[in-house]
């Protein structure tokens, strides 16, 4: 029984590692595309775009980082008022 639990833990760890790899390659591809399109814009408009991105994206970024940190809170915990 102990070995079965250890096996289950190992396989879930392996699948988690695979998921993490997939997520990170996806994120890298997306960010490369964004950086290339960003580098093509003029400097003053760049500042404006950066400010707009920061303005709209900062709180979602904090929430995203928080939801992914250990221990993972669930979506129900995020949305419920209690």
């Amino acid at each position, binding site marked *: 029984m102990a070995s079965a639990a250890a096996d289950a833990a190992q396989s879930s760890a392996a699948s988690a590692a695979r998921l993490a790899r997939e997520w990170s390659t996806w994120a890298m591809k997306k960010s490369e595309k964004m950086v290339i399109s960003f580098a093509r814009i003029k400097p003053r408009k760049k500042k404006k775009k950066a400010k707009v991105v*920061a303005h709209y994206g900062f709180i979602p970024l904090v929430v995203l980082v928080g939801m992914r*940190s250990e221990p993972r*809170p669930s979506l129900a915990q995020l949305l419920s008022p209690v």
Partner: protein
Amino acid sequence: MGSAASASAPPPPPPVQPHGAAPPYGVGLAGILPPKPDGDEKKEEKVDYLNLPCPVAYEEIQREALMSLKPELFEGLRFDFTKMLSQKFALSHSVLMGSLEVPSQSADVIKVPTAQYEFGANFIDLPQLMLIGRLMTDGRLNARVKCDLTENLALKVNAQLTSEPHYSQGMFNFDYKGTDYRAQFQIGNNAFYGANYIQSVTPNLSMGTEIFWLGQQRKSGIGFNSRYNTDKMVGTLQVASTGIVALSYVQKVSEKVSLATDFMYNHMSRDVTSSVGYDYILRQCRLRGKIDSNGVVAAYLEERLNMGVNFLLSAEIDHAKKNYKFGFGMTVGE
């Protein structure tokens, strides 16, 4: 002289304290100096100038005085609710219904009644990363990021972004912490550049300087400050080329009571302000009160009603300008 003495003797293991007196400069220093014979402690403690503690950051030298003398006074109703989703992540909701003062040219005080709701998200994973964001109903975002790039170098970002153009502000700070000094470099919007450096001179005294340049208005300035603190008191002095001289002194009278006073002189506008205040930290409440040289009396009470529930009362009375601000509120959540 100091270096030869401490380099030649190999450091003995930290001695058992036979006298029962705590070493005034910390356990590390007691491990380096040889143990003292009885009765000679106070006179013969030799300061090891190569092993001074790291000083308080430049912008925080007045933090004890600011904590005691400048509580967040408000007018109206205030309600804060903080919900911890995990040890590191929390969401906060905050409602403020009351009057905000609008700065006006004339001597009159203009108050605008406002109601605002503020949503906040905090992710605090010290020491590596700290993200704090606050978003208000009028679209203003207040963002603070603190990130440790290496063990000694930290990056701090502080930004207020608004929907109206040209009102946003941002500041990037790079902090380097050495063994007994700290250095900081700042870049802000409107081409603001600043740098400051603070060094521990003795175990109780630290001194620092700063220099800044404001690109848009082509102004530069230089400042000097120093802080002297012991277990019982903190005294600070700040002088800047913008014509400001500021002194502050905080005395910790007992575990529960501290008294603070500060003095500020502005040479450009020939304005002098001084205030005296007290800070009682009791088991169930924290009460701060102060009186100003302008005749302004203020008090702030935070009472702990229950685990995680705090009741706030704030009052500020200015008879000369006929400005009376009273506020009450509640804070729920850790």
